[in-house]
């Protein structure tokens, strides 16, 4: 069954917002205007967009080092995200977190995290809070195939399983943990064998197909809201850039493989689909694209206008009041 037009356009707009945001960040990293580590989400947009479309602000997500897309899809303020990435005072974390530690608790985005796998235990707590409150809210945790080899991943599956937590595990299987292929690093072979072993309902979807992600995530999140325990969704996808953005590191992945995945661009293929179906007329698509570009331009203007924090602001926020 075809999704309603509003949902289709919404999925596309979210993906495109992530793409344009990440293109800006990549350009600025390569030009030396953004410092530190930034992990690009380009290529994986369909996952965040398809999953988060089902969530309300009362649902929580926990993200990872490659978190910009999750933040945008969950509704985090793009201006303040951009300011954060530039280390500016008006950043969502006042410039204390940077690209790797963006959080927006106001929209239920409980933070991105620089330690592979470490968001998983935290997400079990967010899911337990939702369960204790009993209002049918859920938690979602995003992680990569690399995290599946961490102990915290296994501990968290187990904990979610025995406590029947309303937690959706979203594994963005982009095939590599930094440069190490999952095919080498994971004894289980198919990732879903692992949640299967923990008796957790699971599915694998084509992670570059936003509607496939949307439908599988929707079914899983419905289960969570019914109190039927955790679910696991493996989304097969690919990141276009190196593990983190840098002109100085070599991409060790096969060139043909990278090119083949770029052919399957989740954003461009979906735009084509929406035009073909007539969901969006060409003029409407162009105006949507212009709107998204303006949003990113405005975010950059906001970040550029924001001052740096005062050096001594480093002393604030070690503790909460």
């Amino acid at each position: 069954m075809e999704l309603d037009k509003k949902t289709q356009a919404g999925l596309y707009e979210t993906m495109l917002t992530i793409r344009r945001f990440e293109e800006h960040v990549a350009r600025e990293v390569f030009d030396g205007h953004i410092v530190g580590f930034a992990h690009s989400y380009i290529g994986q947009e369909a996952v965040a967009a398809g999953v988060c479309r089902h969530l309300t602000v009362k649902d929580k997500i926990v993200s990872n080092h490659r978190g910009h897309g999750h933040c945008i899809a969950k509704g985090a303020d793009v201006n303040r995200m951009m300011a954060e990435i530039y280390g500016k005072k008006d950043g969502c974390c006042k410039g204390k977190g940077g690209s790797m530690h963006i959080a927006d608790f106001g929209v239920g985005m409980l933070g991105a995290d620089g330690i592979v796998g470490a968001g998983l235990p935290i997400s079990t707590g967010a899911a337990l809070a939702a369960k204790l409150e009993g209002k049918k809210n859920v938690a979602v945790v995003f992680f990569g195939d690399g995290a599946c080899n961490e102990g915290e991943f296994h501990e968290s599956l187990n904990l979610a399983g025995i406590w029947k937590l309303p937690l959706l595990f979203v594994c963005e299987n982009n095939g590599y943990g930094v440069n190490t292929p999952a095919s080498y690093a994971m004894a289980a072979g198919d990732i879903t064998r692992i949640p299967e072993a923990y008796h957790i309902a699971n599915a694998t979807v084509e992670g570059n197909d936003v509607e496939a992600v949307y439908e599988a995530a929707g079914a899983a999140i419905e289960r969570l809201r019914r109190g039927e325990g955790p679910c696991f969704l493996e989304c097969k996808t690919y990141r276009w850039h190196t593990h983190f953005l840098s002109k100085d590191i070599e991409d060790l992945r096969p060139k043909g493989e990278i090119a083949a995945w770029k052919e399957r661009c989740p954003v461009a293929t979906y735009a084509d689909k929406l035009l073909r179906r007539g969901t969006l007329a060409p003029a409407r698509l162009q105006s949507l694209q212009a709107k998204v570009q303006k949003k990113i331009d405005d975010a950059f203007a906001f970040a550029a206008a924001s001052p740096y924090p005062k050096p001594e602001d480093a002393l604030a926020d070690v503790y909460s009041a």
Partner: protein
Amino acid sequence: MREITYDQAAGEAIRETFRSNPRTVYVGTDPVLDMQKEFGEDRVRVTPIAENSFVGAAIGLAGSGYRTVVNLRMATFGFVAMDQMINHAAKITYMFGGQARFPVLIRMTVGAGFFGAAEHSISPYAMFMNAPGLKLLLPSTPYDVKGLLKTALAENNPVISFEPFLLGKAKGEVPEEDYSVPFGHAAVRRKGSDLTVVALGRMVPEALAAADDLAKGGVSAEVIDPRTLVPLDTAAILRSVRKTGRLVVVDEACQTCGAAAEILARVASDKATFGKLKSAPARVCGLDVPIPFSPPMEKFAVPDKSKILKAAKGVLR
């Protein structure tokens, strides 16, 4: 006044808070039957033995509006959860720009003296002093453990309570009525004028026993118990040392880069206090070895009254 044990006093602090605040959750690997009976198994949860994940779960609960108590049992198991405690609990408030509060209380026992051998006998609080963002308790009496935990359970930050294993069955006066002990306020356990002894945790009763012996020889020792390591009541220590001019710091943790080293550094780098020193300060700490099992070796590795007396005499000479 009634007397109860250190462990009972700690339990009272938690139960009283759970009664007054329904948004509290307890996690630990052992069922706490009386608490489960009173507060239900939803709030008093038994976890698998998977420290890193249940500390992480506590952080996620805290970030979602629940106050969480984690019982890690012993500091040795705490090391399994170092990722969540150091990379997350300590930093999460700061790196997210203070936009959320993380009220997590993590309890673990520390210390040697019970033939627990190397892994289970450890006092790692100095490692945590090096991770800004945590508040660190080292209560030495039943009164203090209850009062400090009450403060911790009203605190909006991650707190770790290091509770000397050997003090668990120690009895002391604890009032029936509600009270709390603020963080960052050292207790002067005994007033004196010739020598300041700063003692940590289980070394407080040892230092008091040493002070009794010193008094018999006409030496008046002041014994200070910081009670919390972060925040540390530096002012109380400096005040005492300026008065006595002599200092011994006693800690059963290993000496190198320990809390005692930090206390000596704060004294030495305060000009007004340094100028009042009549002799070089001394440390009485655990030796820099893993704690050995065999009783004569363990006794050799850990400070006690006789070692404190020896150090005091050296400082007084």
